[in-house]
């Protein structure tokens, strides 16, 4: 870990303020009465995943009590098998993925009633292969990715109609090579990440025109070094992650300037108090801290063995 950071400081003349980011993440956890925490109350489980993965990447996952986390996560489970964003909240596939990911992070998938969770997800697949987010029926390719990723982590991918699921994702492919949330909807880096990852996990990346999409994606990098989510929009650390990881999955990441991107992410750090923001000198939050750190690590993460990869697939399980 240490040598990795010194590599950056050597290369960039700047450093990832790892220790400060760890402290920032731990401090957010304590400030439960903050306005920001209250506003985020309903997505606390997503926040927990972002924070915990950041700690894990920075080698400080030991700073939290895994028992507490695991039992809190289990308390967020609804009788339907899905998870809510917090204790007593309605279940949604968005929160279910975070729950599964947190448990995978601690290698505790087995505390779950795996069939119950996977049945909840399986039940959300629609006739056309798409997935609803919850009982209220909103359909979005984000949910396709989430379903596929969760089931892959649970080793239950065979329980859904994968062929139809892939077909639906492909039906959302646009003429610019990207993907939208439903058929015909505009390409957007976040949606592209979801669709590319869904196709990656199901071994279907041949459905993508990699050169066409790769060019669209690499043109998201502007002069600042940061990447935007759609043409003529401002760069942002979170979009940088989505574009970056999509480019990695289609083997076109060499089409952007990595050093400039690293510099952009480092420029978005709060060097005093820790944390990373969407753009330089904006307010930091856990979400962008996580995407910033993940972006840095996608340049240096060590390949792991098969068994470990199957447990926690680095790239495609990030969200």
């Amino acid at each position, binding site marked *: 870990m240490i040598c990795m950071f010194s590599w950056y400081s050597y290369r960039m003349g700047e450093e990832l303020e790892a220790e400060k980011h760890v402290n920032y993440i731990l401090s957010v956890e304590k400030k439960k*009465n*903050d*306005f*920001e925490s*209250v*506003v985020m*109350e*309903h*997505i606390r489980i997503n926040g927990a995943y972002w924070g915990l993965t950041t700690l894990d990447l920075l080698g400080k996952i030991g700073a939290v009590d895994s028992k507490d986390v695991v039992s809190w996560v289990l308390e967020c489970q609804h009788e339907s098998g899905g998870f809510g*964003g917090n204790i*007593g*909240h*309605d279940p*949604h596939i968005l929160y279910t993925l975070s729950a599964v990911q947190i448990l995978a992070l601690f290698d505790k998938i087995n505390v779950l009633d795996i069939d119950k969770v996977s049945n909840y997800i399986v039940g959300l697949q629609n006739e056309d292969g798409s997935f609803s987010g919850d009982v*209220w*029926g*909103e359909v979005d390719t984000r949910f396709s990715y989430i379903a596929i990723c969760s089931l892959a982590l649970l080793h239950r991918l065979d329980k859904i109609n994968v062929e139809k699921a892939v077909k639906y994702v492909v039906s959302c492919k*646009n*003429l*610019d090579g990207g993907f939208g*949330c439903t058929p015909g*909807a*505009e390409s957007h880096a976040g949606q592209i990440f979801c669709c590319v990852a869904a196709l*990656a*996990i*199901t*071994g*279907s*990346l*041949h459905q993508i025109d990699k050169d066409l999409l*790769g*060019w669209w994606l*690499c*043109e998201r990098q502007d002069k600042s070094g940061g990447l935007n989510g*759609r*043409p*003529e929009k401002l760069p*942002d650390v979170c979009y940088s992650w989505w574009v970056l990881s999509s*480019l*990695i*999955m289609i*083997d*076109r*990441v060499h*089409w952007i*300037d990595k050093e400039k991107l690293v510099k952009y992410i480092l420029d978005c750090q709060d060097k005093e108090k820790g944390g990373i*923001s*969407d*753009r330089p000198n904006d*307010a930091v*939050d856990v979400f962008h801290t996580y995407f910033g750190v993940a972006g840095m690590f996608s*340049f*240096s993460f*060590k*390949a792991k*063995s*098969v068994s470990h*990869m*199957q447990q926690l697939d680095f790239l*495609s399980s990030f969200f």
Partner: protein
Amino acid sequence: MHGRPRKPPTPEEEKANDIKASKLRALQSQFLQFHHDQIYTKEALEVCAKLVESNPEYIPAWNYRKLAVERIVSQLESDSESDPDAIKAIFREELKVVHFFDQIRKWYILVDFVYIVLLLSGPVWLTERALAKNYKSYGAWYHRKWVLRKGHSSIDRELELLKLFLEQDTRNFHAWNYRRRVLQLRVIITSFHAEIVLFGLSFFFFFSFRFVAPLKNRSDEEELHFTTDMINGNFSNYSAWHNRSVLLSHLLENKVEGYFPKEKVLTEENDLVHQALFTDPYDQSGWFYHLWLLNQMVKIETPLLVYTWPPPGSNLKVSVDGCLDDSLPLSSITSFHLKTGQIPVVLYFSEAVEGVNSSTITLESSLHDTNTELIWSPLSTNNSGRAQAWVTHLSFPEEKFHFSQANPIKVTIGHSEGIKSISGFTLSHPTYFEFIVYLQTTAPHHADLQSLDMITWGDENFHTYEVHPKESSQIKLSDPLKSCDDYGLMAYRWNAETITNEISLFRELLSVTDCKIGKLTLARLLTALDAMISYDKTLESKEVVHFEEVLELYSDLMKLDPPHSQFYKDEHSVVLLQQLTSNPESLLRHCYNYRDPSPSRNICLRLCNLSLSRIGSVEQLLWIQMLDLSHNQLRSVDGLEAMQLLSCLNLSNNKIGNFSALEPLKQLQSLRALNISYNEIGAHSVDTRRYLCSSPLSHTAGSDWNFGEFAIDGIDFTNYWEAFSIFKDLKLTQLEIIGNVVAEEKIKLFLVKVMPALRWLDGVELQ
């Protein structure tokens, strides 16, 4: 959080925030209590309304509203007698919009009917309140959709509202998506209506899509005008351009009146997008649309068979012991050394196709029992069952080897339908090709590639190849224009002419600005024109090819736009290889004889030191058996899978970053000597190829792998799963891997175990 400045809050702000936080906290816990206890009183609903107004992302609140609506509606339904006035009032309010719904409500469920009433005065208004706070709240937008789906009476009002929204926030993709949804619903509802008017209620369930199609066309057309307005208001609106491409491709595909012929429409679209591009060439929005238009002009819809190996009309000498005599005057490119008693037959199509099998391909040969079915395999690294190149192997029965006579073989392609592209188009016209095989057994009198010596790639081993005047590299099989009718030919000419005009237009633009996408577009236009010219032998500009200009444009772009220089380099490599292979003379300039100086023997194509970062034009190189690609910048060898004759390959001194990048080589059954020394295998922590190949990660391989059988002294080989997945399928006798981070003793031990046939590793003969 987006776009909030980083500054510590003042004490006042902190105080205000604390108050806000405790208010919101109280609201949220109060709400959750109502939600859990299923209380839907007026008071509870108002708490919920306040909550979504101040925190529109709070999903449980939206769920609660939906529950509340459903609950109230079912109550109204069950005791509608008790308060007729209330319902009447609600109906009156709603009559003007639901005039046809009351005929169909029995089917449409009474409940839905009443929803409209409640929802219009409540939640829709509510989402407006919430959307005023946060245009990007998924929850709020979906709630609106949900409401609309239940009632959808106020479509015009919705469209009006959306127009206002999009004028304020022209790129809001939630609003654009919602707009598409609203329009879809309008089409469905209107078609219901049409059906009822015509057939009456009893036919109601049988509503067919007969009415949907024309309505959809009309709706698309209207919406196209909407995008025109948005674009004319501001050219920099990618969302509107995108929507335009979706609508227009639908209208063109269905040949809707006014949108045919396609050429007329594309001309108008070119004019529109030029206005945008010339107004601000540095704005990206229009350029992507322009690329789409260009693709519409150059794409050939039906797949074609473009190359084969053996080439049509070629003569092959096949021997069992790897040797040939020189008694027949054969061209270098068509004489073939064969040890295994088999030859591959390769079909190379203009795009990836499926359905290549013994029923779509027939083979006539005196040497073969025509009753035995040939197995055709796709040459691709994915499991889609589709590939651009397909191969089968012809075996020659042992007893026939003594006849040194001409054995003609005829391959017929596509006489029965079934060869299809990914977009569903069938091979455009059936075709066939013939070649002649001479079988022989001759005593060896010189060395050849398949012999037992170790290959060494030093310059001293290569002799300049004397070009035989009669030689030509390949014969182009299909002329795509052959199958064209008059209209097709006219459209084709029109496209070529349009592209020529575009080229001069963009040359003009680039004389006044240095815009990078402009340059890239010019390079793409020139490449497209070259491709068209190569198809159409009658075009006057035939002799004009633009390789040099295109290469120069890409070189310029590398300097002009350094962050994307690798993208331009990849494009540059592809064009450079096109240029090299574009005629036999330039290709043969790169051909050498390995060791044996006699012509037509052991020919090696040497493409070294060309700065290649990517491989292309493989279809021109199907005959190559020895290929030297060393000292380039290759990261990938995609494409090589089609070179079925390849037996010696030098990839040393490139930028191969991981074993999975070698996946295409798994398809090369005749590959014996591979040099991957001095690459970057193991130097990168992220394997960017990993997701593209069959692996445990894509859930396409690995479940049956057993590493246990390779265990040596307890060394754990699971870390080598990528090496394993590549090398287990190769039958190499020689490998150089030195000069890679990964090349330590442990992996060498592993490789020797995985490839029992290996005789030389890093220049050392194995025991």
